[in-house]
């Protein structure tokens, strides 16, 4: 067999001395081959690729390029080894043309000859079947055109080894098809291609071999022809881990929040939620599973009145009286004035839920500062609420005047969840409430959610860890590319079942 293009041996990368991003990863890529790197969010795929591209430097292990050990400490070194990476977030100058972006920063000593370069760019585009106007400005381009510029940029610089970080995340199915055609042509041309993804059907369709990572560890590599969606899912999510999370049975569940045929577009006009319908019951935890960015954030923000609704609606059923309130086209303020007690722990804790530079007391006040008839703030009640939360949830450091941004992630979350629960909600929505938290803090949050559930609150829990979802939730709704792909019973569903649902939906053909 020929010398592999890249060979990684025992690569380990640890962040801040404790977060293990990659542990003893071994893999090889050959010329004329497409390798998929598969794994859940946070499994270390991008970190690993960044080490090949010279953005990070591995703590341990070796990288061999064409059979020789390589020292890659900067993207420039990566170029030297003819490695080019296409990042998830494009790095282009908006007001420049495609050609200008491609030649930017290339040869400092020579004068740029854009005309000559444009001809070369066109030639590369034609060779692999890209559609690109070299003189078009970036700000006039669609996302897929921008991606094309990024790919041609690395080809223009002579890359033989291409790394693409979730290239299809931003593409429509038709654009994805085109990209795959181009990648296949590159493979025939003898290039080595690594593609990061978590979409199983794409892996099966495109790649020759698949390497799987799970929580930073290298699980193994299989030939695509021997793999199925089920076998890959099992490699990706692993065997079920028993978690000791309490799960009381729902008591007298009744309908609390009904979402019907909800469709939402984001600011760019792309559909992010499509015909979403479900009901959240009181005294129940409804889990929402899905690959990050499948519309979870938009769903919660829409219910909270932060995103305009394109079609469909949200109904709230008032406990006891049974009065129905329609939440569509209402601001968060108007929703609260209707008497709807909706609490929301957003994903972006310091950017949305809290104000980092304010102290704990002032952050408590965010929900309640309007109380009182005078134009002045009343700080006594928030102060005692802050003290109560600090004591009950063991927030450290324990001063109420500590700016929230000085707290650790777990303590920030305790402050936020504590405040949202203190509002005595009837619906509690929490997006990734345990992300970045240690075990103890995580369990404290689970306990808080369970306590709310016992109080008859309808809890909606967006999570990423399937072990947690299947241990905590009564029902699990799976969302894939903005559509609901299934609602399963949390007590009986298997991780594989949910994992398969996660990769379906939306545009999948």
């Amino acid at each position, binding site marked *: 067999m020929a010398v592999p293009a890249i060979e990684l041996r025992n690569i380990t990368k640890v962040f801040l001395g404790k977060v293990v991003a990659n542990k003893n990863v071994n893999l090889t890529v050959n010329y004329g081959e497409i390798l998929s790197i598969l794994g859940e969010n946070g499994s270390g795929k991008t970190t690993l690729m960044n080490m090949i591209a010279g953005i990070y430097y591995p703590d341990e292990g070796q990288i061999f390029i064409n059979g020789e050990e390589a020292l890659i*400490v900067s993207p420039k070194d990566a170029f030297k080894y003819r490695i080019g990476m296409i990042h998830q977030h494009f790095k282009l100058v908006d007001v420049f043309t495609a050609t200008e972006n491609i030649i930017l920063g290339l040869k400092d000593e020579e004068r740029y000859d854009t005309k000559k370069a444009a001809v070369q760019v066109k030639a590369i585009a034609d060779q692999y079947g890209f559609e690109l106007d070299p003189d078009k400005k970036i700000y006039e381009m669609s996302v897929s055109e921008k991606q094309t510029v990024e790919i041609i940029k690395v080809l223009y610089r002579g890359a033989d080894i291409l790394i693409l970080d979730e290239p299809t995340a931003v593409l429509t199915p038709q654009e994805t098809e085109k990209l795959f055609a181009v990648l296949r042509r590159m493979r025939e041309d003898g290039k080595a291609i690594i593609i990061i993804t978590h979409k199983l059907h794409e892996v099966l369709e495109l790649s020759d071999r698949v390497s799987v990572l799970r929580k930073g560890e290298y699980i193994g590599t299989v030939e695509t022809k021997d793999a199925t969606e089920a076998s890959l899912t099992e490699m990706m999510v692993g065997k079920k881990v028993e978690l000791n999370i309490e799960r009381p049975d729902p008591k007298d569940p009744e309908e609390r929040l009904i979402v019907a045929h909800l469709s939402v577009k984001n600011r760019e006009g792309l559909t992010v939620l499509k015909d979403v319908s479900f009901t959240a019951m009181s005294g129940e935890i409804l889990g929402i599973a899905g690959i990050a960015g499948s519309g979870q954030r938009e769903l919660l923000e829409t219910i909270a009145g932060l995103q305009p609704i394109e079609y469909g609606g949200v109904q709230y059923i008032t406990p006891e009286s049974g009065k129905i309130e329609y939440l569509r086209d209402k601001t968060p303020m108007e929703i609260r004035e209707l008497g709807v007690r909706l609490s929301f722990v957003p994903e972006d804790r310091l950017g949305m*839920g809290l104000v980092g530079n304010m102290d704990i007391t002032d952050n408590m006040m965010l929900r309640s500062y309007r109380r009182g008839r005078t134009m002045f703030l009343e700080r006594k009640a928030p102060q005692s609420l802050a003290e109560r939360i600090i004591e009950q949830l063991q927030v450290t450091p324990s001063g109420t005047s500590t700016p929230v941004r000085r707290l650790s992630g777990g303590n920030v979350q305790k402050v936020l969840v504590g405040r949202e629960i203190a509002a005595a909600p009837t619906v509690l929505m929490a997006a990734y409430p345990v992300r970045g938290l240690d075990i103890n803090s995580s369990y404290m949050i689970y306990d808080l959610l369970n306590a709310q559930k016992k109080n008859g609150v309808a809890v909606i829990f967006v999570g990423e860890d399937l072990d947690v979802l299947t241990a905590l939730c009564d029902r699990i709704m799976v969302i894939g590319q903005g559509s609901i792909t299934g609602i399963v019973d949390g007590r009986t569903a298997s991780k594989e079942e949910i994992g398969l649902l996660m990769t379906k939906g939306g545009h999948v053909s």
Partner: protein
Amino acid sequence: MREPLFHVVKRELIDWWKAWLIRLAAVLLALVLSAIVTVIMTGLNPFQVFATIFDGALGTARRTWAFLQGTAILLCISLAVTPAFKMKFWNIGAEGQVLAGAMATATCMIFLGSKVPTLILFIIMVVSAVLAGAVWGLIPAIFKAKWGTNETLFTLMMNYVIMQIISYFVYQWSVPKGSGQIGIINSESHAGWMPALFGQNYLLNILIVVLITAAVYVYLRYSKQGYEISVVGESENTARYIGINVKKVIVRTMVISGALCGLAGFLLVSGTDHTVTRDTAGGQGFTAIMVSWLAKFDPLMMVIAAALIIFLQKGAGEISTQFSLNKSFADILTGIIIFFIIGSEFFINYRLIFRSRHKESKEVAA
């Protein structure tokens, strides 16, 4: 691998006394450098020059009052820009908003001067000055809230608009006709001149600014609106999340900012200048931005910052006349001192870590 000589690290919280020690050190260093520059460039005794600066600002009772008055006006404008800056609305149109207030005041003095009773005249003057400033702040705010225009450019342009308006009317109303200046308004009757208190012309003016300082302090710290300003400034997403109407807050805050600037314009015309020209604000609308930032938007710290700037301005003016030096030399000294004071904030927020030789040799060995 090569490592740079030092790298910069953001500090965790610094003790307040350490912060002040750094600032004090900065002032001392600035004085040392100023002394060296003085000797090299003029050959004068630097201590004599420093003494003259002090003398120029506080040397006589009259100078002290002028110093206090100057501080009051600059402080008033600094307080005015603060709510907008705290909201991260980059209002650099304070100059224009002050001029709008000044123009309104002067207009009232010219046309109503001896026609209405004093008390009513003052009420009309204050109201029209505040309204003029508020409108000058409101216009860019509405455009920002509705169409997302860039407030920095917009407020800057508004400055030029009011300057041209003033130029036009100053020519129209010039005394004597065609001279191109209005001159002292009501120089005989003193109608619309701020009355002296206990024989001090500036005292009332200064007391008004003391009241404004207290009011702005309380407004920003203890009022619901002040709280909303902080939330919008820190994170618009959070503001939306808790149901604050961000556009409303932007417009309301700019009206307040503009109104206070207008009031400063009133103080300038009625209390100090008794005339209006396109230079009435004299760049203080911009200096105020520096004062506000230097004080980190704290109204009490702003008193110190404004006093410092005025002290340097007055003192620098004195050394240029006293030693018949070029005015630019005074500016150099002022520049050095302000540069050091602002620069010291860097060392309060960051610290430098120098490469240790020991570690380096170890790494080479490894």
